[in-house]
């Protein structure tokens, strides 16, 4: 039915309609809300864990995880550009006319329909008109006088720039959006759609990246990042794309000399700084720059930002202590962060993955410590994060501190373990000895694990102890056997092991008394071991020389032994020394649209102020010759404000009063 012409008209009407504009704005707002509630751009697995496979798949399809770069979101923006543009075009003639016309041709009736109007009887209308003209001029109105045989019209206008405000705001918005489109990856999307570019999804060395995932350096806009270890360089960045990435080549090479972190006295980072050299590939010219957060390096149309940091392969010198073996000679290992080491153990091949190293680990202090030191923060010193993965591929994650940490006045080597990233760490606290080392604990553990060594100690002790040496040989042997068995039970399964043994081997009515007896014996046995061990080490000569430190150490050690079964793999990784190597995360952007966006923003700001704070006002004073009354003529005065503000009423009253005064009468 519709003729082609009217169809075009319908399309035009549709695009310039307020309903479309508001619908688009609402869509934009809803999509934005979703985008802030669902974390964007995470690894797909995280979403599967969170939403389940079905929903994750569905959400992925409609682009919930990359909402701001989905085709429909981009479409909304494009529609908004079209809609706002047509809206502006539609209003241009109307508003231009409105800006330039004084509306001096309005009839008397039209004036009497204005929001503010009055009719004043006037004896001397010429004088009145002149006075009003002068008054309006003084108030800043631009006037137009039109005389005809019917009467004299004075039409005044003020604040015409208000209309300009409309154009500036709306064109400003279009300009901003256009600038954003220039900087978006729309071109890249198009290339991906047509198969000219294919993102790389594998984690492969640079040289093996699919050539279709490598973007030439003359790409019009990009925003990506790269991590460069100290002493190394890169002439590319990675642009994340869907589940993969592109490699964007750069026209220059970035050489990282050093990365530092400055700290406040609280241990909080104060600044992140990269000493950077940039070498232009074409000219070979180099620029040296100290890159800091909030202080980017601008090179033509490309900018380099300090954006993150990580370990760049810190060298590690480690000692691996077996916690269950009959020998506790540690194994030495040299490795790097980011490397994996395979170790043959009794539990099969274990893979050590050294994930991260942190030089400073600042944590809030406990209230007691704060009282003592007055500090709110406390630095726990270097920390190593690593995983141990078995042949089946399941891994436990560990973190271990290099230096002993203070807890209630005592020092412990602290290491945490967890089965997955979602869990909190469970910590093992190994008490440090008087030399702040692991030695005493490892020696003690060795005694607990080594039946032979333990036997030797007990045998010797029983012979030398005045109380036990009186017993018969058989009784002595029984005593030793009791200790040995109890300690073995205790080592393997803690107090629970002993309880379990009693439950299965002792008649019920005797269980309680036996339990008390066993626990007393166990304590005796462990104490004997401990004291004899210290004697062998030459630290004390007799039990009386045990200090308070030795006594609490013993209790802490027993607690540590009890915690051992929960530590996962019985290997304690001790960081002996390290050579720090950092890597800096640089973000590199090319956004030619930025200046367009800024220009549009300026227009928008100006426009908003014009719209809000410049009122377009009109005043008409009309002397109609045909309306003579008894005492002269009547003069019509009317006023209008395009915002219909209450101020207008007040101003009108003032003008009216003025007119009445000059007319010398009341209406």
């Amino acid at each position, binding site marked *: 039915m519709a003729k082609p012409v009217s169809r075009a008209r319908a399309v035009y009407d549709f695009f310039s309609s*307020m309903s479309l*504009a*508001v619908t688009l*704005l*609402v869509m*934009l*707002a809803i999509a*934005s*809300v979703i*985008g*802030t*509630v669902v*974390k*964007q751009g995470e690894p797909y697995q995280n979403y599967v864990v969170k939403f389940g496979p079905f929903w994750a798949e569905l959400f992925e399809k409609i682009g919930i995880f990359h909402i*701001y770069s989905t085709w429909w979101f981009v479409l909304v923006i494009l529609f908004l550009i079209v809609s706002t543009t047509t809206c502006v075009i539609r209003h241009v003639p109307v508003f231009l006319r409105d800006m330039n016309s004084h509306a001096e041709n309005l009839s008397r009736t039209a004036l009497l329909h204005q929001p503010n109007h009055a009719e004043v009887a006037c004896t001397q209308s010429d004088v009145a008109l002149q006075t009003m003209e002068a008054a309006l001029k003084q108030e800043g109105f631009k006037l137009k006088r039109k005389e005809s045989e019917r009467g004299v019209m004075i039409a005044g206008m003020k604040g015409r720039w208000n209309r300009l405000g409309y154009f500036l705001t709306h064109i400003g918005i279009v300009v901003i959006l256009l600038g*954003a489109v220039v900087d978006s990856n729309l071109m890249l999307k198009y290339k991906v759609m047509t198969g000219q570019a294919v993102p790389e999804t594998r984690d492969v060395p640079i040289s093996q990246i699919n050539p279709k995932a490598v973007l030439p350096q003359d790409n019009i806009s990009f*925003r990506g990042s790269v991590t460069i270890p100290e002493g190394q360089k890169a002439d590319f960045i990675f642009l994340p794309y869907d589940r993969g990435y592109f490699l964007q080549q750069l026209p220059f090479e970035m050489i990282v000399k050093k990365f530092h972190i400055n700290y*406040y*006295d*609280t241990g*909080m*980072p*104060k*600044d*992140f700084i990269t000493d950077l050299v940039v070498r232009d590939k074409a000219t070979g010219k180099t620029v040296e720059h100290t890159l*800091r*957060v*909030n*202080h*980017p390096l601008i090179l033509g149309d490309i*900018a380099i*930002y300090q*954006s*993150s*940091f990580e370990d760049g392969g810190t060298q590690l010198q480690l000692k691996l202590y077996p916690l269950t073996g009959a020998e506790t000679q540690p194994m030495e290992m040299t490795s790097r962060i980011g490397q994996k080491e395979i170790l043959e153990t009794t539990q099969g091949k274990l893979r050590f993955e050294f994930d991260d190293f942190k030089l400073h680990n600042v944590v809030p202090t406990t209230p007691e410590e704060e009282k003592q030191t007055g500090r*709110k923060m406390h630095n726990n010193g270097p920390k190593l994060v690593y995983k141990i993965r078995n042949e089946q591929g399941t891994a436990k994650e560990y973190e271990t501190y290099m230096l002993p940490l203070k807890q209630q006045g005592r020092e412990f080597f602290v290491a945490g373990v967890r089965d997955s990233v979602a869990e909190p760490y469970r910590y093992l606290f190994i008490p440090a000895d008087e030399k702040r080392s692991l030695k005493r604990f490892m020696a003690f553990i060795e005694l607990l694990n080594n039946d032979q060594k333990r036997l030797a100690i007990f045998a010797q002790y029983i012979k030398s102890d005045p109380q036990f040496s009186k017993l018969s040989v058989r009784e002595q042997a029984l005593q030793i056997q009791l200790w040995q068995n109890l300690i073995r039970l205790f080592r393997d399964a803690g107090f629970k092991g002993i309880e379990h043994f009693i439950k299965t081997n002792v008649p019920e009515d005797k269980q309680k008394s036996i339990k008390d007896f066993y626990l007393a014996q166990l304590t005796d046995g462990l104490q004997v071991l401990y004291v004899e061990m210290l004697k062998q080490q030459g630290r004390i000569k007799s039990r009386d020389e045990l200090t308070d430190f030795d006594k609490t150490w013993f209790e802490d050690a027993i607690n540590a032994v009890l915690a051992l079964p929960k530590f996962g793999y019985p290997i304690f990784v001790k960081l002996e020394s390290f050579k720090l190597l950092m890597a800096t995360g640089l*973000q*590199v*952007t090319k*956004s030619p649209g*930025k200046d367009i*966006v*800024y220009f549009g*923003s300026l227009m*928008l*700001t100006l426009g*908003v*102020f014009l719209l*809000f*704070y410049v009122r377009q006002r009109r005043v008409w004073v009309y002397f109609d010759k045909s309306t003579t009354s008894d005492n002269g003529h009547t003069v019509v005065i009317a006023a209008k404000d395009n*915002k219909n*503000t*209450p*101020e207008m*009423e*007040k101003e009108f*009253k003032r003008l009216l009063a003025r007119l009445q005064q000059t007319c010398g009468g009341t209406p």
Partner: protein
Amino acid sequence: MNTVNDTYAEHMQTNPTLKERFSLFGIVWSLLVIVTGVAVWLDLHTYMDVYEKAILIGAVPGLIALGAFWPSIRLYLLGVAALTLLGVWQYSSHGNDVKVQEQLFLLKYLLSSQSAFMWMSALYVLATAGYFFALFIRSEFAGKVATGLTWAGATFGLTGMMMRWYESYLINPDYGHIPISSLYEVFILFSVITALVYLYFEQKYRTRALGGFVMLVVSAAVAFLLWYTFDREAYHIQPLVPALKSYWMKLHVPANFLGYGAFALAAMVGAAYLITDTLARKKPDSTFVKAMPSLEMMDELMYKSIAFGFAFFTIATILGAVWAAEAWGGYWSWDPKETWALIVWLNYAAWLHLRMTKGWRGRPMAWWALVGLLVTTFAFLGVNMFLSGLHSYGKL
């Protein structure tokens, strides 16, 4: 003209006359601003970077213009300056040791930032009660007292901020920063700005009856602040994370809070509108309805306030984009805080459109303004509490 419009006109107050704008006091005040600007320049310019110098140079004509635009702010700022100088003098005459705030009477009970904030809180709460009291007993005098209390609260609030700025340098020169960088600090900024924007409108439109409603939001902010102070001990001055060390912050944050403050004000006027309108339908002659400004008046005030807020929120968002371009490498990253600012902005853009182009007025707009406060509050507070992103500076 009908009676509604007459009361309406009565409520309308003119802008300051030229005489007020450029009175002798105004001239003296302007000179003082210039002298202070020059003195600060001479004293501190070696410590400032080019942008900070630009801000200082811009601040002088800015303050003079502000004084001409709103003459009452002159006395207010002088009061703040005097109290601040007194506080600074107390510190500097005792070796600039921040700990003297626990010993010196003036600091301990009045001028250290913490006690100034306590005074601010108390005065605001009293002002809220005062406004409502004045509304119910219809006492002009009580209303004036409430206005005075609000001015006093705002004075202590801004003084406290200035003192906190100074104290941050006393604790450790490394920590020194303008106190608008943590949730605690911006809440104070919010309560100062909202009160001031309200006082401006109150003076211009003679709307004392709305004071209680507006100060209710400010009191809510104060309640949050007190909880944050006593339960979370959030008042400790912490050094800045690297991303916040930017001169842009000095412009972006206050502009944002002019927006938030104005939106909050519009919402409360909306609430007052709805209550008055509902009562007026049931009992048009009730004393409450008579005591309140006319509905047209409140409608207009809502518009004025949202327009004012929108203008500054636009500037703030643009400044935020410029800052983001410098700190994060992109003017727009769809970071939650950024995105919510956009949502707030779109919300009020839609509000303004429907009013300007479709002529919507009255109840629906009042409801919308009120709901707008929820959106604004989420952008202001909820994002920090529930969503993570670049603005929480978790990564760097």
